[in-house]
């Protein structure tokens, strides 16, 4: 006799419940209780009316395990349709990632390293930063981590590029439309707080683990948030007096966006890009769980096989990459800022 039998009897729902005899599979907890000689009735005197407890009195009520199963079944049922839509849309991402990885791996080091150092100088215009970048890359190459570091860098370049290309327009649209902002902000909150492993699960179901877009999407979803947020914020923070002047002189929407709002919001947008780079680097390690190549693989090997040295060297490599990316993008940000704060 379960606790809620009386209620279903009283409501006259016995017929609907199928006589009260539960034919649901026995749960492991029940099995253990039975083998210990207890009876289900000897549980708490007044159990919470949860799905499992109600099910004991009325077989027509589903068990909690059916809820999780239902979600799974629902997802699997929608999968073919989702796949037909998402697969072609995201295919270019695979090409981009594969192409970038191929390029970074095949260009010989004596061209690649100077090119990266020049890029760092072009972006930062700072000798100190450039020297640090050169030192870091050479150090990584010296301990034979050049290839994996380049793979990680290739993935970050592609994912950051796509995040900016998508995130800035989304941020602009949000800043222009309060309704859109109210709708998008919860999604951004969700992407930022959802444990990263959680959205790897449905992605694995949708795409095959051998496709590079799987980890590409995971990284972009995680890293796109700051650039959207800061573009929206940056445009909303643009001095309203200047915007009013733009209106008073008859600028149209496009002239205002390109000539006033984006340039004035640039420091904030650059800060967002800096955060996006950092977050895609954080995610590239986790993405190695789903076959992303690079330094993350070595970290994973360190954890799996308890190879302390391998894990630590790869970890330091990631820190070095993080620092050079951060310093270079920060120096670029400062340069943009300085251009208008020079006094």
């Amino acid at each position, binding site marked *: 006799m379960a606790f809620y039998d009386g209620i279903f009897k009283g409501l006259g729902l016995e017929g609907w419940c199928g006589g009260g005899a539960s034919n649901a599979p026995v749960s492991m907890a029940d099995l253990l209780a039975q083998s210990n000689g207890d009876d289900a009735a000897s549980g708490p005197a007044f159990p919470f009316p949860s799905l499992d407890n109600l099910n004991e009195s009325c077989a027509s009520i589903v068990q909690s395990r059916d809820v999780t199963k239902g979600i799974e079944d629902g997802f699997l049922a929608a999968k073919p349709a989702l796949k037909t839509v998402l697969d072609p849309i995201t295919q270019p991402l695979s090409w981009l990632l594969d192409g970038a990885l191929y390029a970074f791996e095949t260009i010989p080091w004596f061209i690649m390293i100077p090119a990266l150092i020049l890029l760092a100088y072009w972006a930062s215009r700072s000798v100190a930063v450039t020297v640090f970048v050169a030192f870091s890359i050479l150090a990584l190459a010296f301990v034979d981590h050049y290839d994996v570091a380049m793979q990680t860098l290739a993935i970050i370049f592609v994912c950051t590029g796509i995040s900016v290309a998508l995130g800035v327009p989304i941020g602009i649209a949000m800043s222009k439309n309060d309704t859109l902002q109210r709708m998008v902000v919860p999604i951004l909150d969700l992407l930022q707080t959802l444990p990263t492993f959680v959205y790897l699960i449905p992605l694995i179901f949708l795409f095959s683990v051998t496709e590079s877009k799987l980890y590409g999407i995971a990284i972009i979803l995680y890293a796109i948030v700051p650039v959207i947020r800061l573009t929206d914020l940056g445009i909303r923070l643009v001095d309203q007096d*200047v915007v009013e002047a733009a209106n008073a002189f008859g600028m*149209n929407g496009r002239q205002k966006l390109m000539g006033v709002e984006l340039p*004035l919001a640039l420091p904030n947008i650059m800060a967002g890009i800096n955060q996006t780079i950092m977050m895609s680097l954080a995610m590239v390690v986790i993405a190695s769980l789903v076959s992303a190549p690079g330094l993350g693989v070595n970290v994973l090997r360190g954890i799996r096989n308890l190879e302390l040295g391998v894990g630590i060297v790869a970890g330091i490599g990631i820190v070095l990459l993080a620092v050079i990316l951060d310093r270079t993008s920060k120096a670029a940000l400062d340069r943009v800022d300085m251009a208008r704060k*020079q*006094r």
Partner: protein
Amino acid sequence: MTEPKVRIRDLYKIFGAHDKDVLQHVKAGMGKEELLVEHKHVLGLQDINVDMQPGEITVVMGLSGSGKSTLIRHLNRLIEPTAGEIFVDGEDVMKLSEAGLRSLRQERMSMVFQKFALLPHRTVQQNAAMSLRIRGRDETEQANEARKWLDRVGLGGYENHYPNQLSGGMQQRVGIARALTANTDIMLMDEAFSALDPLIRTDMQDLLLELQTELHKSIVFITHDLDEALKLADHLVILKDGAVVQQGEPQGILLNPSDPYIEDFVSDINRARVLRVKSVMTALEENSGIFAKTKYSGDVKATDNLESLIARSGGDTGHIYRVVEGDKPIGQIDMRDLVKALVPRVSSTGGNVVK
């Protein structure tokens, strides 16, 4: 009378979500406080009727919150009115399409702002050329026009500086050059000199008057400073709580304030510097014969201010001067009348009333 450049008729502005609905209460005579308490709407402007003549400086003066900045923003519809009509060159601004409104803002009205509102990422020259770039003129025209007007406002040589490398006064010169480069008939100046310190403000006022004698634009100037208003105005409009208390020729307002509020206002200013001989003199016909009979201590110009005349007479009230405009005598001024005109009429607080 010539056709006014800008004509404002029955203009009302109420801030709030249901402005059109509460308008009837305002028209029925509900005040600002009452409206805020009972309907949670803010009364911005009520029943404004102003004509702005071409080639004149119309000064709109009032304290903070009197609605003067709101009023100027109605002229180019940066703020939409609740009710009323605005005509520019006889054309109803309220009926303009979006493109028509943009062309009005580009080609017929330019604006100078209290906080300068220059583009910080553009050079001084690019800022000055802003209006021409918006209109899509070619680069050389932009550069030539911008340089011409920057030179005119005394900023030659600063073309390639950035705005924040300049002082406040210089930044506002860029703001004025930007408005002049637009080459519009109407210039809107929203507290353009209020953020500047007093000496620079005087310089800028002189610059504006000098430009005005040359260019004859129709200028709408907003200020909270009565001295500035009296110095610049051809036509003075005084606002209080969103309504016009008095408007007219500034000397007339000073000598005949219609309202205790304005009397309080004008009681603090240096009347000797502001009042001009013409406003105080006794006008006489050229051939009235009085000129021949009276013995004058000398000739004064109609546009001289009283201060200069006091200095000239050495404080002696026994003199009578002949007033000339050009070469023509138009009246006479007795130093005794002059001294009387210096005493403000203070009826609100009692005391000495001089009529």
